[in-house]
């Protein structure tokens, strides 16, 4: 499935906006996960504007596709996506990490469009398996369940319990996406606990494997099309999306330093200008730069 240049450009623009808003909300909150939010911007853009069947006017519409964010620390990117897709006004992203606002990880009761609550790694795929089984029980052959996992969380045993059961139940309505950004909280995946050979692991667990460049919206679109309409034949499908942690801002790329780390307003201003240059957009800095004087100062932390 090929896209015309205009569609590709639109998806790239969505990914750019997801990155901008992620940095905006993390900076405003003085807490959050930069690297893991920036790495999955294209994945979310293609899911919410191409692959998934959702209706922002009716977020709980029964026939919708479901997305479970297992790597729930990437919530800024998902909150940005849902805002841009029209689930709520963009201003609400600035409640991120505020008392009573959007949660630091995910609380489904706080944010319209969220399908579940999460935070501890390794748990989301099981919830997705339950939702995929539910579609079978309800005799719904059309809707799909998507689940985004981080690479580091593949260290968790729960993921492989879920992987084993997905194949056992023949859940070909389940599409897992690995945001394979190569870096976890304290270093490289291969340094802390290697997950390779990754494609072979999923194949051995009975999954259909598709590998893509996770920053190429054309490749992602084609992969989701195959996963939804070509490949399903009794096996769950995993898209291993090779990505760059912190993609778009040089100091954050492949850096575990920016796993859980909020930029100061001044640094965020630089980062957003750099992001604009890297993606060929008009140079715009941090929109809340003038408000910073009023706020307590604490940067970083976990």
């Amino acid at each position, binding site marked *: 499935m090929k896209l015309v240049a205009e569609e590709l450009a639109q998806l790239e623009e969505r990914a750019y906006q997801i990155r901008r808003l992620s940095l905006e909300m993390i900076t405003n909150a003085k807490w959050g996960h930069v690297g893991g939010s920036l790495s999955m911007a294209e994945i979310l853009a293609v899911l919410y504007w191409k692959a998934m069947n959702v209706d922002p006017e009716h977020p709980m519409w029964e026939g919708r596709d479901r997305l*479970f964010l297992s790597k729930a620390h990437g919530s800024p990117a998902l909150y940005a996506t849902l805002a841009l897709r029209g689930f709520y006004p963009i201003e609400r992203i600035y409640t991120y990490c505020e008392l009573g606002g959007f949660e630091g990880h995910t*609380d*489904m*009761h706080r944010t319209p469009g969220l*399908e*579940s*609550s*999460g*935070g*501890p790694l390794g*748990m*989301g*795929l*099981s*919830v*997705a*398996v*339950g*939702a*995929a*089984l*539910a*579609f079978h*029980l*309800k005799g719904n052959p059309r809707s799909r369940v998507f689940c985004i996992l981080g690479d580091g969380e593949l260290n968790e*045993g*729960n993921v492989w*319990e*879920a992987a*084993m*059961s997905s194949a*056992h139940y023949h859940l070909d309505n389940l599409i897992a996406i690995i945001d394979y950004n190569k870096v976890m909280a304290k270093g490289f995946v291969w340094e802390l606990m290697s997950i390779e050979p990754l494609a072979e692991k999923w194949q051995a667990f009975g999954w259909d494997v598709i590998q893509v460049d996770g920053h190429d919206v054309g490749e992602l679109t084609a992969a989701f099309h195959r996963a939804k309409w070509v490949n399903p034949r009794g096996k769950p499908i995993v898209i291993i999306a090779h990505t760059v942690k912190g993609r778009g801002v040089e100091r954050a790329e492949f850096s575990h330093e920016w796993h859980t780390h909020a930029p100061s307003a001044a640094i965020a201003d630089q980062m957003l200008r750099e992001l604009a240059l890297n993606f060929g957009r008009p140079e715009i800095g941090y929109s809340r730069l003038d408000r910073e004087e009023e706020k307590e100062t604490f940067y970083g932390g976990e």
Partner: protein
Amino acid sequence: MAASSSSGESADMREAFGDTLVELGHAYPTMIVLDADLHTSSKATRFRDAFPHRFIQVGIAEQNMFGIAAGLALSGFIPFPSTFAAFATRRALDQIAISICYPRLNVKIPGSYVGLPTSRAGASHNCIEDVAVMRAMPNLRVADPGDDADLRAIMHAAIEVDGPVYFRIARYAAPALFGPGHKFEWGKGVVLRDGDDVTLFGTGIMTGHCLLAAELLADSGIKAQVVHMASVKPIDRDLIATCVARTRCAVTAENATISGGFGSAVAETLALTLPVPLRFIGVPDRWADSGGIDELFAYHRMRPADIAEAARQVIALKSGLLTR
């Protein structure tokens, strides 16, 4: 009242569990039972045989089972992920906490093989800390039934409320406390026997021991009030305060560790309302061990005689005959 030595292979609370699952399955078409390779032990087999298409076998993978239950609940089903209490509340605690309790999902969690009676399986399977652990989960209701009728009523009450519930099933033939028309209400205790001298607060199968203890105390002229509190969370604070306002001393009894469980819940209430002499009966701060059930009740000082002795102590404290 039957003696406390009535465990074994004869009808125990698991039978009522299996039968009530089927009963609820007929009434609630969206009910699903999940199992992690223990259905003949838990008696969930009966649901599998009655509703094979609403029974999901997950293999020996409890973390996955509770995650799947969350996904089913999010899709409008009412899942009962069924396993031994030890494997639910230890192995899958994170999944229960964050995937289920945090978003208040409509999942009903049966914990079987609780406390001392687990047929000699030993400390790994005698789950004693589940009440303390589950009581600490916001949004979760916790109940420990006193007999078969109570278990059945709790299962009905569990499915009638929207939200997560944890309830216990002992592998134990508990003497009957209630008749077949028994109703259970969340946050309500029941006075089973009245008396002015001391209140014995029991939960789960230990309420039966409290009634036997009250008989022993009556022999020496002590009038003990016995209150059954299957609803550990929410707990009946009003009833606790009302009872103790009269008796001015109390003993709690539970088939679980005394650290943080039912006795602690009673103590928390009394600390806020009316601090009085109090003693706790349950497994002290140690692992449960293998052994015959009567042997274990004796080893952990959880026999009716131990409850009666604790009652005499709190009465003496109240009367100023003993100092703390």
